[in-house]
């Protein structure tokens, strides 16, 4: 989507605002602006082994430890969010994500407000409720960037797709929320990736199904806890690797499963002083794929393999002063890292990649925060000799890289409530 499509949306918002002045419509508009300064302090491996999304050799943007950021100033990830209610029945939301080059409809969905028995139905494009961080927008994150597992297992936006969700909150003393989702599975990268030129027809949509459960006991005024489990299955997945004279494709289906936990301690002092937030997630993805080889006479199917990859993070944030917090995050990607590799074609077990990050955040006023983050990557080197890899860069001897990020994020307008 480009600017000419965004302009009407912005005009529409302007109109809404002027309408709001005369008539108290139940509509809220907020603009979240972000700036990021990025500096690489030392060069490490470009990408974690086994998660090379850039087999198209220069097509598609690479993202390893650069988060898709340029060194120096970046507009980061800004958002225009419009939410409106249609009487007692529906709520609609539109979230446009943009930077200085692109505008994208991140979310555009309708949600029911009046179904009985704790049921809610949501349809449109939205962030899946699997896991914890997946459904949170970046101004609610504790770190500048998305965790590795989310980016490399689910995609640049996490699991965000067009589909429907049915969720159920039973009237139990412990908070419980259960849900199922069906998505089109059309994202061109991430878990539902399916490259052009694959010699097999895609399954018809919806191609991605998920289920999630969240629960949280009542721990009084000083503590809160939420535990979650999610799973999903994918009707197709396809990757193409072009080696010039010939090509390889791996095509199949898959499933994933994960757990997440978030604990918060409220010290009851001012502006988060003494508060703790501790959380983590683990996800495992498994794919059952066939390999196809492209020769002179077209494609031939060869072996069948089960690929498995996982990722996790653990993080803790502490409010060391009113309005100031500091946090640490440790991540691992590919503790299980079995992927199909070529020449010869086989299932290879690759090393795990690690990343650790530390951040300090200052929130002078509620809608604004400034965050400095340093992160240390230790990305696994892709084990064997890539004859076709000479135009990749960054496969130096050292696997580790050090980076510094500075983020400023402000929410203007009717800033939505913070989710847990």
């Amino acid at each position: 989507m480009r600017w000419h499509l965004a302009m009407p949306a912005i005009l529409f918002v302007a109109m809404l605002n002027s309408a709001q002045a005369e008539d108290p419509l139940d509509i809220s508009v907020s603009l979240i602006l972000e700036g990021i300064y990025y500096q690489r302090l030392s060069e490490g491996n470009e990408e974690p082994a086994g998660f090379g999304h850039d087999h198209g050799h220069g097509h598609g943007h690479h993202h390893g430890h650069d988060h898709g950021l340029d060194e120096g100033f970046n507009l980061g990830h800004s958002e225009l969010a419009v939410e409106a209610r249609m009487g007692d029945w529906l709520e609609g939301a539109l979230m446009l994500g943009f930077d200085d080059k692109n505008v994208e409809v991140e979310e555009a969905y309708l949600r029911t407000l009046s179904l009985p028995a704790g049921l809610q139905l949501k349809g449109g494009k939205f962030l899946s409720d699997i896991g914890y961080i997946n459904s949170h927008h970046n101004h609610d994150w504790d770190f500048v960037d998305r965790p590795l597992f989310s980016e490399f297992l689910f995609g640049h936006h996490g699991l965000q797709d067009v589909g429907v969700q049915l969720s159920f909150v039973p009237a139990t003393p412990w908070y419980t929320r259960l849900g199922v989702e069906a998505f089109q599975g059309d994202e061109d990268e991430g878990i539902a990736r399916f490259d052009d030129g694959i010699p097999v027809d895609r399954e018809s949509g919806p191609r991605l199904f998920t289920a999630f459960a969240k629960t949280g006991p009542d721990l009084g005024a000083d503590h809160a806890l939420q535990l979650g489990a999610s799973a999903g299955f994918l009707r197709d997945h396809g990757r193409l690797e072009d080696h010039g004279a010939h090509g390889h494709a791996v095509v199949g289906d898959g499933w994933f499963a994960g757990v997440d936990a978030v604990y918060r301690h409220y010290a009851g002092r001012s502006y988060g002083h003494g508060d703790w937030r501790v959380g983590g997630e683990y996800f495992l993805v498994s794919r059952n794929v066939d390999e196809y080889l492209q020769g002179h006479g077209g494609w031939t199917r060869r072996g069948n393999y089960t690929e498995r990859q996982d990722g996790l993070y653990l993080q803790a944030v502490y409010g060391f002063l009113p309005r100031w917090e500091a946090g640490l995050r440790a991540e691992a990607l590919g503790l299980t890292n079995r992927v199909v590799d070529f020449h010869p074609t086989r299932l290879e077990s690759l090393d795990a990649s690690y990343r650790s990050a530390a951040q300090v955040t200052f929130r002078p006023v509620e809608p604004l925060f400034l965050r400095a983050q340093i992160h240390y990557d230790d990305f696994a080197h892709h084990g064997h000799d890539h004859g076709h890899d000479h135009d990749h860069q960054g496969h130096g001897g050292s696997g580790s890289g050090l980076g510094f990020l500075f983020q400023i994020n402000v929410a203007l307008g009717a800033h939505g409530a913070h989710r847990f």
Partner: protein
Amino acid sequence: MSLPMAIGGRLVPAVLTALLLFALSAASVQAGALNVVTTTSTMGMLAREIGAERVEVRVLAAPDRDPHYLDARPAFMAALRRADLLVEKGGDLEEGWLPAALTGAANPRLNSGRPGHFRASDFLHLRRSITMDGPNLGHVHGEGNPHFQLDPQRVAAVAAPLAARLGELLPADREAFEDRARMVSARILEHAETVATRLDPGQRFVAYHEDIDYLEEWLPVEIAGYLEPLPGIPPTARHLRSLADSLRDGPEGVVLHAVYQPARGAEFLAAEIGWSRQALPMEPPANGGLEDYLELMQVWAAAFQAGE
């Protein structure tokens, strides 16, 4: 059938069965008492006094916490899921967390516009806030000052509309609710007058946030300034200096802040101009009743007798 399909094929029915079992086990029909959830304990006190044995009241915000800065924690959503009536103060006080908690609660009885959603500020004239006219700084107090629990007259004024709402939900008890509301509001107003007449008039005070200034509405005291330059903006050194300069040569007073607000700025100013400083409780206990609220009014007034 492939492995993922098998898992999906088993997973979806399993989840749906679990949903059904939960739905059957958790009957949301209220036997007898009305399930009332209030955001703050002053509102909880009113609901408890007016509803008496016909209500079961749960207060979300702990009395010693800043109600602006809570989050939509799971326990809140669980309480809201089972509520027949939500009583919020409104005036955007709960804006930072209540909408998210309501979304997570999936309880249409509490949809705004339904009888199950009571917003006290709809029935009150709130004190005008500086943020209503000033530049937009995050919408704190955009609808007026929401901390009206510090003004017994306004708390008393919420009693009748709340009784009417309870009566709408439990028509058989309407008169009983109205009678109790009259009694509660009369007690509060009478006590407010008694407390106010005991104070020497004309005393001045500085508040940390735009909240304690509500004392000016019923006590013979005057607000002399705020430690926060604007609601939600922390005190700056420059602002504190100019505040000190403007107050130094005037009559003496007291610097007041809520128990959950930082004491530093208040201490600095009090030392600078030789006033006393006090941290005030802002709400009665979570399960408190009328007597607790009356006692709290005395605690507030006593802040002005400390120096005597």
